[in-house]
């Protein structure tokens, strides 16, 4: 376990350095924010003055080393546009994204898993076809469209839900459904396949022959064995939820990191974009690590050190 963690830590450090390097240079390929910040009629001289003051006239390598030195001091810098420390901005926005992604995950797991299990158990029935249609809808509706439809129906027409923003507990319902739909569909599909595969195994027949209730066969045996693929997709799906938040947060004016990322990319607010990417890299790596550790917990045959 110790050796495994050390190896993973080194791999993670390399992955994070690679990610921030890539983002640092790709952003700058398209230019800097000077022109966006100035009024249209600004003269060449004014443009050059501001560019010099912001430091964008320096060689890229120097800017990059500067950035790394800054990171080494645990300093994320200041937003170029808002002139507020990046850490303050991210700390204010992160809880909203976690709240939304968590609620969406609840929707996805809470509906997706039972639906998937029912579809496997009630294979080739009318019920399965109805549920399959639900899964298909969740899978194929783009969130920017389903989001606005949800707003029009529940907020404008029925007046039952807030149309946007964060005004209380009810505010998270519509964005969580919009964001969770795709993940819900994925969970349902994966759970269905995994359970179906286990249903045909000998131990299921043996357990039933022993006189166990079908319900407890499912919950005590099948689900445990079907857990590995579900854990794998969880790591991927949570990362997907964070990525999907970019669109859902924009549609619902949800004040999280996704919306901030879109705005900061458009405004070329490099320090914010870099910090969001850095954070996302951390989260993805942590999720994958957590999934690997969880495998060994649910399946004792898997040893993390790779030594049998």
């Amino acid at each position, binding site marked *: 376990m110790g050796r495994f963690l050390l190896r993973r830590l080194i791999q993670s450090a390399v992955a994070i350095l690679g990610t921030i390097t890539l983002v640092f240079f790709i952003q700058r390929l*398209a*230019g800097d*924010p000077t*022109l*966006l*910040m*100035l*009024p*249209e*009629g*600004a*003269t*060449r001289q*004014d443009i050059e*003055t*501001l560019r010099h*003051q*912001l430091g964008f006239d320096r060689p890229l390598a120097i800017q990059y080393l500067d950035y790394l030195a800054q990171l080494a001091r645990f300093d994320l810098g200041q937003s170029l*546009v*808002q*002139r*507020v420390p990046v*850490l*303050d*901005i991210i*700390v*204010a*926005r*992160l*809880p*909203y994204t*976690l*709240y939304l992604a968590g609620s969406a995950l609840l929707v996805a797991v809470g509906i997706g898993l039972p639906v998937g299990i029912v579809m496997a158990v009630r294979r080739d029935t009318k019920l399965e076809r109805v549920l399959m249609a639900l899964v298909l809808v969740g899978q194929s509706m783009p969130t920017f469209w389903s989001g*606005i439809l949800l*707003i*029009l129906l529940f*907020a*404008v027409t029925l*007046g039952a839900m*807030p*149309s*946007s*923003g*964060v*005004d*209380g*507990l009810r505010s998270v319902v519509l964005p969580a459904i919009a964001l969770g739909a795709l993940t819900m569909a994925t969970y349902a599909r994966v759970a269905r396949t995994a359970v179906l595969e286990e249903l045909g195994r000998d131990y299921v027949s043996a357990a039933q022959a022993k006189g166990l209730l079908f319900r407890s066969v499912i919950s005590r045996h099948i689900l445990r064995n079907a857990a590995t693929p579900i854990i794998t997709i969880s790591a991927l799906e949570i990362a997907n939820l964070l990525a999907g938040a970019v669109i859902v947060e*924009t*549609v*619902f*004016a949800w*004040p*999280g990191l996704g*919306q*901030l990322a*879109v*705005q900061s990319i*458009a*405004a*070329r607010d490099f320090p914010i974009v870099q910090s969001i990417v850095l954070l996302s890299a951390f989260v993805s790596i942590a999720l994958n690590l957590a999934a690997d550790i969880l495998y060994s917990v649910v399946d004792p045959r898997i040893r993390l050190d790779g030594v049998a």
Partner: protein
Amino acid sequence: MARWLMRFSIAALTATLFVGGALAAKDVLVVDLVQEPSSLDPHLQWNPDSYFVYRNVFDNMVTRDDEGKITPQVATSWRQIDDSTTEFTLRSDIKFHDGTPLTADDVVFSVKRIIDPALKSPQRDQFNKIVDATAVNPTTVQLKTEGPYPVLLAQLVKLSIVPKAHVTQVGNDKFNQEPMGSGPYKFVSIQRGVKTTLARNDTYWGTKGPFATAEFHAVPDPATRVADLRSGKADLIVTINADLAAELKKDARVKVLSVLSERVAYFHLNALAGPTADLRVRKAIAHAIDRQGIIDGLMAGYDKPATTMLSPVHVGYVEGFKGYAYDPAKAKALLKEAGITADTSFTLFTAPTFDQRIVQAIQQMLIDVGMKVTIVTSDFAGWLKRAQSSPAEFGEMSFSRWSCGCQDADGVLFPLYHSSSQWAKLRDGAIDKELEAGRSLLDPAARLTHYKRVHELAEAAVPLVPLYQVAILYGARKELRWTPTPNESFFINRMKWEE
């Protein structure tokens, strides 16, 4: 560490718990902006989402009335002492929100602060013709400009007066996060990404605001802003297009407010390189575009055709220019004469910021007269870079809209037409001379003569095709009485609420 942990927990709490919502609708005005203000310090960013908020917190040197005329605010009167010196008399009864009086020292400080390169203000360009500011006495200030500067007053419309003592004491960063001015509303709080809250200044010297509280929410998606308005969540929403306006018109609880702004849309042509360097080609393009068709077909008739780059609300606007009539047959003939065939390719570069339906409509109109036009899209920052690049890199044409926020010919025609400007894709000595004369004379009548000549020369040389005066559309609750202005101002104390 402890500080940000605390902020994190507060934000997390507000995210999960029920907040606000208990106040009566008439006390609180809720405005949906596109984004949150990027700065609250009025001397930093000058974009609509910031300006709409902080302009209510500060008083400016002068202001404009609803018709666009320059009227007193902090300065009650002004007179020219010599060609480059203007003396301003200030109100003596203005108090900042902390109770300290606003004096000539604050005005001098504000001018010097915004032109100080160390502040790195993106607005510096608008004020750097001012070379000195001196306080004669507590209610008199003299501003010295680099030679005669006719646009001084128009620029001072945008100069907010900040409290010298307070800014010096708290520093620039803190002032940006917790601004304090003398305006009709006081800053209360900013909840990042959620809303900015202002409270009425009950001791304001001028017209007091009708709402005890004003909240500005950041709602990036226009369809969501419309939903907010229709569901009663917002009272006023900004930046909607004609399609969404049509949706609002079907709802009896809300209405559309529109104003013809000082923004003019135009089709920029490269007169210095490529096939558009041929005057006949530029004239052909001008004849091929059906302005009225675009306005009626895509903008529901809100916008107004333009034949020069100035709107009637600009100083320097001259009536009577006919422009180039929509005449596809003439366009085809001119192209033939210039030897343009279906193989000559033209690039039309644009950015998603601009309404792509208009760009595509123009592309189709040009294809209809036999041109081969390809649209090239980049993000807005990329667009800005290309639009200000050398004629060789510019390509053939571009769709754009121009506003100087100053309602003066100098802020529009000089950057677009003068050889020294990176925007101009034209070199014309005669136009240059007229533009230089226009910016160095104080007499309005004399300036107008020069700008009339610029319009004539530009119409003959066609460095760009003026398209239309842009209408700005807002959505509002039926009860809100408000007159939007051509310079896109946003004064809450000029609004009224009638049940």
